[in-house]
């Protein structure tokens, strides 16, 4: 698991850096648009679609991080009434279920992107360069893929700890964000 752990840390650092940069660009760009529109009555044509698609990227990477830190929205009910061991066992079950769903959605996303590559659609143009739609859509399979990997390794780790009866079995997915 050591190698995977290291890999996960690298991906995590890359995700966080990417989020910070993308979100900063978005804040500046959207503010710039407001200024342009209000004071000069002009605007960048590509800025609005770019910003909306960027929210999708923010959302998917944010969701991938939420998977890492176990921050997804859930009905937090059963855990309160179970022993620590039973709660871990249930979390393995729900984790594996979520893994399967993410794999299927990643596959569906990939089919979607592959279709779009064949269509040669463009989504907006920056400085005369037409951005192909599938560039923007690539985050969907990547996001679901990252989530399924994280869910799988977390559930597998919890399952191994449970079987070993290790004292760490009840601990969360590592440090907080």
């Amino acid at each position: 698991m050591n190698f995977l752990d290291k890999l996960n840390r690298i991906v995590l650092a890359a995700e966080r850096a990417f989020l910070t940069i993308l979100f900063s660009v978005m804040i500046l760009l959207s503010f710039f648009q407001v200024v342009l529109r209000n004071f000069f009555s002009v605007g960048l044509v590509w800025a609005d679609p770019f910003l909306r698609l960027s929210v999708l990227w923010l959302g998917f990477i944010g969701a991938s991080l939420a998977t890492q830190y176990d921050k997804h929205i859930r009905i937090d009910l059963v855990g309160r009434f179970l022993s620590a061991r039973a709660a871990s066992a249930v979390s393995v079950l729900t984790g594996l279920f979520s893994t399967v769903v993410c794999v299927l959605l990643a596959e569906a996303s990939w089919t979607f992107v592959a279709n779009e590559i064949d269509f040669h659609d463009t989504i907006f143009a920056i400085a005369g360069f037409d951005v192909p739609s599938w560039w923007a859509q690539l985050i969907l399979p990547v996001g679901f893929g990252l989530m399924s990997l994280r869910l799988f390794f977390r559930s597998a780790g919890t399952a191994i700890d449970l079987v070993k009866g290790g004292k760490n079995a009840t601990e969360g997915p590592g440090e907080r964000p």
Partner: protein
Amino acid sequence: MTGTVLTGILLLALAFLGSPLFAVIGAAALAAFHFAGIDSSAIIVELFRIANAPTLLAIPLFTFAGYMLAESRTPSRLIGLSQALLGWIPGGVAVVTLVSCAVFTAFTGASGVTIIALGGLLYPILTEQRYSERFSLGLLTTSGSLGLLFPPSLPLILYGMVASNTRMIGGGVPDVSIDKLFVAGILPGILLVVLLSAYSIRKNAGSGTIPFSFAAALRALRRSAWEVPLPFIILFGIYGGYFTATEAASVTVVYVLIVEVFVYGDLTLRKDIPRIMGESLLLVGAILIILGCAMGLTNYLIDEQIPMKLFEFVRSFVTSKAAFLVLLNLFLIVVGMMMDIFSAIIVVVPLIIPIATAYGIHPVHLGIIFLTNLEIGYLTPPVGLNLFISSYRFDKSIPEVLRSVVPFFVLLLLALVLVTYIPELSTFLVDRLGVR
């Protein structure tokens, strides 16, 4: 048919066992499309459509602004100001609590952060002024979600986005927009604060007060001089026609960033800001992934005319609008007991809008009814978020917290009845100001 029912039961069980809701909803969409013989990539086509929503950008921007405010010393300045202005009223510290929490929650979107950020500061003040422990606990627990009817709260934005993506029976688009919702929530929101304040004043007439001093008020005002204009910038910006709700979000982020980093120096640009960005985007990601997965499912339900069938079913035993509203509120209270506000909006609104509008309920009024119910849901077991945050923050047992919120809960129910049966509370300002 049995396959559908079995899948439904299995998914509900997995949801109650604590599976992430986006996975449950995604699985429901996968199953529905599979049974209908449609390729699963159609779910993704629908999911990708959320990138068309013009107000999508407002979600990460307002969330980030709210998190910055929560991490700065804004809570303490806000309390200082309301104390200086309202502390002289008998029972005034309770009013201070209600007002400052409501304002703060409007900006932080009722994600539970109010009790953490303000509760710790207000609890000692309440105790010092001889408010009973039980009253203080109930007050703070209730205040944790008070104000989610005020702009620019995240639940209002999300309701607006989800609602404008639904279709009424017959195919029309419901007459709802974020600009309208921002105005619609103001009077009902004030009603909640006034009702709770009146009770608090009555209950604590003998408690300590903070004498009013003009100098102190001026000092507090000067201290928060940069934060006080914020709600007005947003409201006048939008309704003065200077910018859209999304643009207002952008202006808010830049304004808050400059004020907290460069004017007050509460947050550092290199350390705090990237960390707060990351934290706020966790919540944004968690909400958007549910929204995305629900797009496919919603589309399937509309194609199968499920809202229409539900409406015909309901109509067979509920004929009047008034009776339907009773049923609606009971249903929403149960939803609020089980689900958090964001998932509830995403999952339930597409089903409710066609039915409620068929009974002649205005979709903006419906939104305010919906959010008031879900606000009550923060206080109801088994999953009421405020109960648990409060129990954790003030180190009290859940039964203790539950007992403390009972009078407030009853008052909120009363307010819900008023909001439900006086639609003008929600629509008067919208009509009067001619908001589109």
